[in-house]
Structure formats: C-alpha cells, structure tokens
C-alpha cells in the first residue's frame, strides 16, 4: 500500500496516454468478455440440455404427422411425450418477432424446467386462442394479460389472411434457457385454424425416456419405426442436438477463442510499447529510486505492478461493459444467445489480464532492472 502513491503518480504522468491505453485494454477485454461469455452460454446450453430427452424432427422437409406420437409412446422406455408446431410471428413491427410454440398440456411434463403452473396450462387447454408469454417477451412487446393481440404470421388462417389473433392468458417468469423469451399457444388453434392444406402435422415431437443410457438405442428405434414411412424422422438426444447445432456452421469455441486471442495480441504490443516509452521517459526517476535504495527487483516489480494495474482496470471495465451490453452482442452475432459472466469467465479474463501485463511489461521491467545508476544519472 505504501508504494501506491508511486504507482498513482506513474499513471498520472501522462493522463491522456494512460486513458487511451486504458480505453484500448477495455475494448479488448470487452471483446474477450463477450466471447468468453458466449462460450460460457454455449457450455451452459449443453450442460442444461437433457440426455434423457429426445427430439424428433422430420428427416425431409419440416412437417411430419402428429399421429407419430401414439406410435412413439409405445416404444419401450418412453415416458412423457409432447408435440410442437411453431408459428413465426411479428407484432406491430417487423422487428417484434416471436416464435410461438403450439402444443398442449403434455409439454409441462416433458419440459418441467419451464416451471409453469399446471393451472395455466389447463387454461390454455380450455381457451383455443390462448397464449402464454414469458415476462421479458411480454415487456418487450408491451403486451399484458387479457390483451387480444393480432400477429402477422407465416401460416394462413382460415379467413385467407396470415393474421392470427391470440388471447393473452398469462405472463410467466422468464427462463434462462430461453434468453430471447418464449411464447406458448394451443396446438388445436393452429391445427383447426390453418387453411394451407396442412392438418395434423407438427414440427417436433419431444419425449422423455426412463434410462438416459439407452438414449441412442431408443432414438434409433424411433427412427427405424418410421424409416419406411412417407415421412421418416430423425431422433436425437437433446444434448447431442444442441452440441451439433453449436458446431454446425462454425466451431464457436474456436471462433470465440480466436477473436479473444487476436484482441489480446493487439493490446500486448500496444501496452508493451506504451510501457517501454513510459519507462524511457522516466529513466532518471528510476535511477534516483535505485540511488535511494530501491533494489533492481523492486523497481522492476513496480513497473510490472503498473502494467498489471492498468490491465486489470481495463479488464474490469471491459467485463462490466460486456455484462451490461447485450445489445452489442446481438450486433456482433445477430440471433446469438447473450453472453453470461460466470466465475470462469471472470477468472479467465483476470488471468489473461495478468498474463498480458507480465508479458507486455517484461521488456520495460527488464530495462529498469538492468539500468546502471551511474550511467543513467550521467545521461548516458
């Protein structure tokens, strides 16, 4: 603590340079924070995904018969089962998008983590045009319970338009599995209200099994069941499905690490250069410090401490911004889940900050350590 005034004085020596360096480090760690936060989000998505939940989708096209539910439920090991069809909708503005899951009360057993009261699902079963909205989504769309809301959708309604009206039955708490929010409607409404020639078809069947170790075997059985039908399906354990999706287009982990590494590499040189320049300007001061008794290691440590404080401060600010700027994330990676600041992400960023500080400060610290007092005082 007693060396703090020396540290503070060094940072205040050229305030503009310190601020600009701090800003650069902050921006770099904002990127590191977002990228690591995204990685953490993806890891959490995979971690939260259940191995004992199997998702069935059409092998070709997108629709397949809802009647498959009755056949799948007879496969050994299948417990609870539900079906889903989706309506892509917009409300008032094209940017107010939502993806309504049209289902029935059985979803509650298959996705218990949604934590919705059975009473609400019972209401949905009774009210065909009913709609359940998550709190965040309802707030974003400015919709409240009791509203009758018309949505522009990708499905043709029986009147020939693509306008579907819903009656908002309940607004339920948000769920971190659905960072963009969620909405649930009654499958019967879609099935009976659509006029596009498609009836009794769904996008997805989801079911739980009694033994996670048999997930692959059961999934294969389900695929085999419909292999020779006009609408064959793909059955995949949910965790595998999410892992495949994340790896599908791009290796997200590699991408996020690459972006982090590039930004850290950039500030490594920047900070190193700033520190070298700063130390060069203060050679007489370091010579005086050594003269009055500071050891070679002591002055080196002060230089490294100076770099570390700068890097840690920048990392802290960057993480705060990364945590407080989810809109920035969607600007960089549209549609991507929001990053989360887990202890792992914070630890990683702090580790990177210390590493950058040590590497970038090392040449300057070495120069100060090697400084000959007599030559420095003589101006040589």
């Amino acid at each position: 603590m007693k060396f703090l005034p020396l540290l503070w004085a060094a940072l205040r020596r050229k305030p503009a340079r310190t601020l600009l360096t701090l800003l650069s480090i902050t921006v770099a760690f904002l990127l590191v924070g977002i990228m690591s936060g995204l990685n953490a989000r993806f890891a959490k998505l995979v971690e939260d995904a259940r191995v004992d939940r199997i998702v069935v989708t059409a092998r070709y096209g997108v629709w397949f018969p809802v009647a498959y539910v009755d056949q799948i439920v007879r496969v050994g090991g299948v417990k609870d089962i539900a079906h889903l069809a989706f309506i892509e909708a917009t409300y008032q503005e094209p940017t107010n998008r939502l993806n309504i899951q049209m289902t029935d009360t059985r979803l509650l057993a298959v996705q218990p983590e949604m934590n919705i009261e059975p009473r609400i699902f019972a209401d949905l079963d009774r009210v065909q045009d009913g709609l359940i909205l998550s709190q965040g989504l309802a707030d974003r769309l400015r919709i409240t319970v009791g509203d009758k809301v018309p949505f522009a959708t990708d499905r043709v309604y029986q009147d020939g338009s693509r306008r579907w009206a819903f009656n908002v039955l309940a607004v339920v708490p948000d769920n971190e599995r659905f960072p963009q929010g969620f909405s649930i409607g009654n499958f019967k409404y879609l099935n009976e209200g659509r006029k596009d020639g498609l009836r009794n078809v769904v996008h997805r069947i989801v079911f739980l099994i009694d033994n996670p170790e048999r997930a692959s075997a059961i999934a294969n059985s389900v695929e085999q069941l419909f292999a020779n039908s006009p609408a064959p399906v793909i059955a995949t354990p949910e965790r595998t499905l999410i892992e495949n999706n994340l790896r599908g287009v791009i290796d997200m982990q590699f991408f996020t690490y690459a972006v982090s590494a590039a930004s850290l590499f950039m500030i490594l040189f920047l900070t190193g250069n700033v520190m070298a320049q700063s130390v060069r300007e203060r050679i007489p001061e370091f010579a005086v410090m050594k003269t009055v008794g500071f050891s070679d290691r002591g002055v080196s440590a002060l230089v490294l401490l100076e770099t570390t404080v700068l890097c840690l401060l920048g990392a802290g600010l960057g993480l705060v911004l990364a945590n407080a700027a989810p809109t920035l994330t969607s600007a960089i990676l549209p549609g991507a889940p929001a990053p989360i600041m887990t202890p792992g992400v914070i630890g990683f960023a702090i580790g990177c900050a210390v590493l950058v500080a040590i590497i970038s400060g090392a040449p300057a610290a070495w120069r100060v350590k090697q400084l000959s007092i007599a030559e420095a005082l003589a101006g040589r």
Partner: protein
Amino acid sequence: MNEIMDAVVLRDVVKTYRRGKEKIEVLHHLDLSVKRGEFLALMGPSGSGKTTVLNLIGGLDRPDNGEVIVAGEDLTRLSGGQLATWRSRHVGFVFQFYNLMPMLSAERNVGLPLLLTPLSRAERDKHVRIALDIVGLADRARHKPGELSGGQQQRVAIARAIVADPTIIVCDEPTGDLDRATADDILALLKELNQSQGKTIVMVTHDQKAAAYASRQLNLDKGQIVNEVGIAA
C-alpha cells in the same frame, strides 16, 4: 589510516570506462580517506574522476580494482541487492539537477527513501516533517517540484538525503544550477548539517567558493589526487 575514525576509505582504486572500443582509465590506483564528521570538497577539471569517486563512495558504481570501505562496509563485497539496502541506510544523495520525482509532492519526494524502511506511516510522516523543517520548507510540503524554485527544489533534495539519517551525504555539484545567493544558502545548510548533526559530507564541485564551505579540499586530475587543502572550519 585509522579506519575506525574514517567514514570513507578508498584503497588502490582503479576504475575504467569503455567508450565504444576505447577503454578509459578514470581512476589510477587512487587512495583516499574521509574522516567521520568531515566535510570534504572534491575539485578538479571535467573528466578528472570526481563524480566517479562520488559514485564509488555512494555505492552507485563498482571499482575494477581496489577496496571501497564506507561506514565500515567493504562495498566491493556486497551483492547488488545488499548494496541497494546499504545505500538506503547509509547514504544520502544530492544532485546538481535535484532529481526529484516531478509527479510527487515535496513531502512524498522526501519520504521516498523511507518507503524501504519498516517505519509506520505516522513515523514516516514525522521524519519527513522534521527533514523539511530542517531545510526550512515545512510550509511547502504539499507543493510539487514544478511549483518550487531551484533553491527550494535543492532543499527538498537535501531533506530527502537526510530523512533516513544516513552516515554520509554525497553531493554532486549541488549548487551548479543555482545563482550565487541561493547557492550560498544551500552550502550554508550543508555546513550546518555537517557541524550541528555531524554528518559526513563529500561534495563534488567546480566552484571554489562552494569548496570554501568544506573543511577539507582535494583536487583531482586525471584520476589522481594532485593536492590537498585544509580549510579552517
């Protein structure tokens, strides 16, 4: 020579510098002693080796040959770290251009050597106040060097040199950057420290008037002592 009475003993000291490919022997088998409580002025033309002698006495540089014994310690036997610790305990430095830390206030500059001691904050502050009081700058404690005159800056430097109560004070042209009147003030202060507090002072100067404040004067030329003048205190 009576080493117990001597604050400084240089014995058969050789110091060589390298300038490019050329080797320059600055000190040729120099012998020198400074008694405890003495105020010695080292004079001589540029390049005569005055500052080199001062650097050796202050433990800022090492000889190529010979012994440098200051405050009873053979400095040639100390490691870099030991020498740094020794400097913090036994030597105070005053430079021509003050060499203060521009971003630190006068009191922080003075307190710099005390950061290396186990003293508490309150004890350090007390020492700093006393040192600033001695040099007559108690009312300028919170001023930064840029807000002080040359003479005041040199007083701060002297306060820094004495704050840790060193055995010896080495001064390299302490009045070289000051006008006559201010220089006289500074020299009077050094003499006062020498006489009232018994500090051993070794001062390098070009200025004959400055040298007159010392109790003894040595003239160096080409790395050797050419003559010695004793001055009545």
